[in-house]
């Protein structure tokens, strides 16, 4: 049962070729490049969405932080579209892979922190000691703040992985439970099916929320450091 349950999270290779590359690159096909002054509906809708997200996210940043606008909008669109595509049956969701999420979280977090150290050295070092701490507690608090700083990228990556993986696992389990219950007791199967539908709606929300949370936190780390 273990083998079967986790089999949807194995990186797909077809006869030795890693098609995971194609799967990760697939969401880029869903964002056409605008070529006209007035574009078709799909491109206009995506431009509107991008402007909405950009205005909301970039409002709180200084001009230095706003240079990251392209990176952050690409991040939220990439994670959002990847998560939503993963809700299709039998599809592979790249964001369930810890490798990919670590690869996203660590460079972005490190970029924000290193930018902070380069341009505002004193202020970024000051983050290690909150204001108004009593003097005897200072060494311990510096250690705690350092640990909490270094855990930020790990938390980013593991949060995204765990949320999406758990959602997919739950859907798989409840779906197979509903299927098995049909021959035993159709009413219970109906109840389980309704639970599955509610869970799917939740998963749609989770897909979008996780993208938002990831990007928001990166943006927060950026704000601290610019």
């Amino acid at each position: 049962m273990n083998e079967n349950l986790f089999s949807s999270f194995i990186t797909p290779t077809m006869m030795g070729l890693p098609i995971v590359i194609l799967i990760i690159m697939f969401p880029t096909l869903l964002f056409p490049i605008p070529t006209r002054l007035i574009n078709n509906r799909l491109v206009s809708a995506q431009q509107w969405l991008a402007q909405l997200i950009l205005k909301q996210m970039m409002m709180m940043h200084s001009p230095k932080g706003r240079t990251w606008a392209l990176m952050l909008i690409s991040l939220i669109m990439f994670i959002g579209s990847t998560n939503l595509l993963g809700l299709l049956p039998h599809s592979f969701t790249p964001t369930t892979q810890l490798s990919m999420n670590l690869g996203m979280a660590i460079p972005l977090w490190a970029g924000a922190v290193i930018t902070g150290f380069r341009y505002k050295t004193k202020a970024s070092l000051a983050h290690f000691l909150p204001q108004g701490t009593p003097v005897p507690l200072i060494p311990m608090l510096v250690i705690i703040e350092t640990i909490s700083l270094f855990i930020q990228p790990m938390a980013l990556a593991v949060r995204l992985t765990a949320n999406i993986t758990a959602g997919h696992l739950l859907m798989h389990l409840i779906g197979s439970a509903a299927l098995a219950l049909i021959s035993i007791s159709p009413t219970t199967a109906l109840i389980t099916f309704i639970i599955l539908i509610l869970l799917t709606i939740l998963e749609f929300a989770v897909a979008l929320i996780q993208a938002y949370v990831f990007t928001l936190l990166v943006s927060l780390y950026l704000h601290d450091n610019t």
Partner: protein
Amino acid sequence: MPQLDTSTWLVTILAMILTLFILIQLKFHKYSYPLSPAPKTFKSTSFPTPWETKWTKIYSPLLLPQQ
């Protein structure tokens, strides 16, 4: 847990870096938000001289002393 099988990590990370940092950014780089083409009202750069800011009745032509 198959996510912890590190043999595939390199391929996944490279594919993600390619996609996220190059492909997707190339798509969003082309989004442009032009300002609306309505003409802007421009403020005049010349300011009225102090004696022109207030209209005073003595400048009315019929009230000037007749010459």
